[in-house]
């Protein structure tokens, strides 16, 4: 035992002693079948932490590789993944020359990291997955993460609350049933367990992965409705500096009666990003300022984000990454309209309400590639949230901290890929609403992916969570999952998954105690965890290189859903009140009628969200979502169109009708966005510009009851990248 420890220490010390002088390198250029450069392809040196991305001219350059034989994997959406055996002698840069990738737009599978906590081909994952690329976000000028999520089929936003396939209604941001991760690390607030979708600079994001379905078997509480993983950009070999600015103007509302401002309303922002590598050290910094006058009165926002990332390679097998961000936001507080005659104006008493929030986090991740078939990862996060407002007689304030750590070991043995981990967490809150509270959690998880044959992949896993929430006390939850993938050939992939999920009550739901305007909210120290069972059956079919489709049937059963409502005493309290069943299907189709010129995506989701307790519909769940997206590249211009249809809620919370005037006024949403962009190079500098019109049809729809979604606005962007 002692010898093993000594060996381990020596191994670590050896890895720190690794000298760049002994290293090898590899370079090349990626092109397609028409000799056109392929940019933004991901390259991995298997068995190391090393890798890179191709630049705009298709070139890549990876250095500091220990001499030896490796497999270089090249992956980019729209092309067949390529693996190349390379033999790298010491002290030499091996030039692979031009590498041609075959364009097969619908048969290539992106690499996914969220479903199993390690890199997997998307077709090997037994659950529904969607992803949003940095290019998608840039083309739509997504200002915050929710701006990007609004276009993902199966998702709708109830203001800032994410609803994946009907999992969440609306609870003013409290107790999210969707887990948000940053680079695989939980990113939720300690007080409300809500998602903070504006506290990251969007220009630091490489992509966003969305798992649609219960993820508690790997990610624990809050993941019962799905998981969103924000993956930040890796620091490349080349120095990169980019600057982007945007400016926009809101139209006047279609109905003159709603006009409230005597001057134009603008939105504007500036995004700066730079990355630099100094041998083993890579640094990136992203800074964003966003401002928004808003189309609604007292809905203005002013926000700063400054984030950074440090990557340090102790060796080709050991990498430490530290990411962090600081956000400061001041905003008005538009909760709901005064009435339908004044739909863009809040009640008079709320006109001076404002909220100031500061949120910052620090997250270190250390990854050690022990061998070609084993790795060890230790990660953590400290996420601090502070807000203060002037709402009510005394105003509200809260300071909360969320600390989460995880040790993870991944081993590939034979046909098994095993992942084990332990995951302690701690959160505390100090507030005049929730008073002084703290909570503890600890979990262990394990997952085995078994490659039965080329056609069959089975996944079995589970997680045990223990939690202790202040005076609510201790409890625990076991959540297993099973997954099957069957690839019979002919472009078909069948998948099946089943699992359970849970969500422990948040501090806000359990301990909120406040009173305003004759309404008193009282705590509930007897709250129990919500629980769920989920089943999904899916079929992914590639018909040709022009057409592919994915069908998912899903069934979710929920118990003890926590909802706030009036008690007979007249007080408001969060209680475990609802049993629910949500069944439905989601159909997605990808079409490439003109390969690499015209792309179409159609996504339709049908949900039947039933409240079993009351034999009625669940509140705030649309039954139909239809999202379509077209992208057409013509004469060097990229044009895009998004059309979204969201059916009206079948049911709202009736208690709101005594608070929000004309709350029952809800309609279907038809939202059409158009955009055109152009990118051009001058010497080594890339310039890009775009123009977009959002809500072109000036259609007035509900974002939530008593709240109208963004009216038509025009946005111009201009960017430069060195």
């Amino acid at each position, binding site marked *: 035992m002692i010898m093993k420890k000594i060996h381990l220490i020596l191994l670590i010390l050896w890895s720190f002693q690794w000298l760049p002088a002994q290293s090898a390198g590899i370079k090349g250029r990626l092109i397609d079948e028409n000799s056109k450069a392929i940019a933004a392809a991901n390259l991995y040196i298997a068995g190391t932490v090393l890798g890179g991305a191709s630049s705009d001219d298709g070139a890549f350059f990876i250095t500091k590789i220990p001499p030896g034989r490796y497999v270089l994997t090249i992956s980019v959406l729209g092309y067949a993944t390529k693996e190349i055996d390379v033999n790298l002698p010491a002290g030499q840069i091996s030039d692979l020359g031009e590498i041609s990738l075959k364009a097969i737009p619908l048969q290539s599978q992106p690499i996914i990291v969220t479903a199993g906590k390690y890199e997997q081909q998307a077709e090997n994952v037994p659950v529904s997955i969607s992803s949003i690329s940095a290019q998608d976000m840039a083309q739509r000028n997504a200002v915050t993460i929710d701006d990007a999520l609004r276009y993902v089929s199966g998702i709708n936003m109830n203001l800032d609350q994410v609803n994946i396939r009907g999992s969440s209604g609306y609870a003013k941001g409290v107790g999210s049933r969707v887990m948000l991760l940053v680079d695989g690390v939980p990113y939720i607030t300690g007080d409300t367990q809500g998602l903070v979708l504006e506290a990251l600079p969007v220009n630091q994001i490489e992509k966003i992965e969305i798992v649609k379905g219960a993820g508690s078997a790997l990610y624990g509480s809050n993941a019962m409705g799905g998981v969103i993983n924000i993956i930040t950009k890796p620091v490349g070999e080349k120095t990169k500096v980019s600057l982007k600015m945007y400016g926009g103007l809101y139209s006047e509302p279609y109905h003159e009666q709603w006009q409230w401002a005597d001057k134009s309303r603008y939105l504007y922002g500036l995004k700066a990003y730079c990355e630099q590598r100094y041998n083993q050290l890579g640094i990136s910094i992203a800074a964003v300022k966003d401002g928004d006058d808003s189309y609604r009165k007292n809905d203005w926002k002013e926000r700063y984000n400054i984030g950074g990332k440090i990557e340090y390679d102790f060796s080709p097998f050991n990498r430490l990454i530290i990411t962090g961000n600081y956000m400061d936001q001041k905003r008005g507080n538009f909760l709901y309209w005064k009435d339908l005659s004044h739909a863009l104006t809040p*009640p008079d008493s709320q006109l001076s309400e404002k909220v100031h929030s500061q949120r910052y986090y620090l997250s270190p991740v250390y990854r050690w590639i022990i061998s070609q078939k084993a790795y060890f990862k230790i990660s953590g996060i400290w996420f601090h949230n502070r807000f203060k407002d002037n709402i009510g007689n005394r105003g509200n304030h809260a300071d909360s901290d969320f600390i989460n750590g995880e040790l993870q070991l991944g081993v590939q043995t034979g046909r098994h890929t095993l992942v084990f981990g332990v995951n302690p967490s701690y959160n505390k809150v100090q507030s005049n609403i929730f008073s002084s509270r703290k909570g503890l959690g600890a979990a262990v998880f394990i997952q085995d992916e078994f490659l039965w044959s080329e056609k069959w992949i089975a996944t079995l896993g589970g997680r045990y969570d223990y939690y202790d929430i202040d005076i609510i006390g201790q409890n625990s939850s076991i959540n297993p999952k099973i997954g099957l993938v069957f690839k019979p050939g002919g472009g078909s992939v069948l998948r099946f998954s089943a699992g359970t999920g849970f969500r422990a009550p948040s501090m806000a739901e359990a301990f909120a105690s406040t*009173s305003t305007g004759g309404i008193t909210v009282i705590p509930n120290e007897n709250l129990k965890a919500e629980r769920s069972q989920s089943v999904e059956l899916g079929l992914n079919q590639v018909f040709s290189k022009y057409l592919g489709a994915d069908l998912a049937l899903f069934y979710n059963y929920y118990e003890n859903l926590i909802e706030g409502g009036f008690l007979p005493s007249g007080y408001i309290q969060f209680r475990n009140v609802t049993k629910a069943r949500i069944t439905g299907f989601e159909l997605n189709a990808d079409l490439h009628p003109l390969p690499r010129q015209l792309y179409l995506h159609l996504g339709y989701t049908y949900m039947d969200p039933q409240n079993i307790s009351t034999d009625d519909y669940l509140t705030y769940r649309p039954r139909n979502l239809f999202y379509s997206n077209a992208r057409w590249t013509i004469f060097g211009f990229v044009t895009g169109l998004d059309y979204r249809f969201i059916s009206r809620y079948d049911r709202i919370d009736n208690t709101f009708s005594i608070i929000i005037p004309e709350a029952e006024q809800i309609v279907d949403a038809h939202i059409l966005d158009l955009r055109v962009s152009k990118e051009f190079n001058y010497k080594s500098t890339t310039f890009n510009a775009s123009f977009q019109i959002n809500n072109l049809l000036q259609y007035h729809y509900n974002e939530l009851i008593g709240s109208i979604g963004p009216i038509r606005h025009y946005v111009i962007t201009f960017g430069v990248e060195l």
Partner: protein
Amino acid sequence: MRLFYISGIFLLSLFFISCNKGLEPPHNLTGISGTIHFTNWNSAGTIHNLKLVVFRTFPPEDIVSEVMSGEAQAYPPDLTQSLPVDVDSVAFTMELGSGYYAYITVAQQYGSNVYEDWRAVGQYDTTAEDNLPTGVQVNEGSILEGINIYVDFENPPPQPF
């Protein structure tokens, strides 16, 4: 060329789908307006909330359940908002559906139970010979003016709740 036609048809269909513009404001206001006059605030006790409430029938059962069922409407319409306190008078314009309203009252929430702790402190009454409230007929597309109510916290009207 076929692609252009398909795109054109798709866009046109979106325009047709969306031509109703979604939510729209009510066209003509229907309701009542007037002034509430207050006296003897020092006898009011604790005021958690103060509302103008209009009921279709008299006597009503209670305020909150009738508002929730649509049998009564409150002003300000947001339950958490109150009429101003410690003022001599306040003017109001309240939107209502057309029809007959039997009871217009100013109600005070004096305790923390939002369901039960209410009392009437003033009512619309144009007849001096009795203490019964006066009903009004509200017509579609017009505001019935002159609904003036006198609140004397020392001498509240008969309690219907």
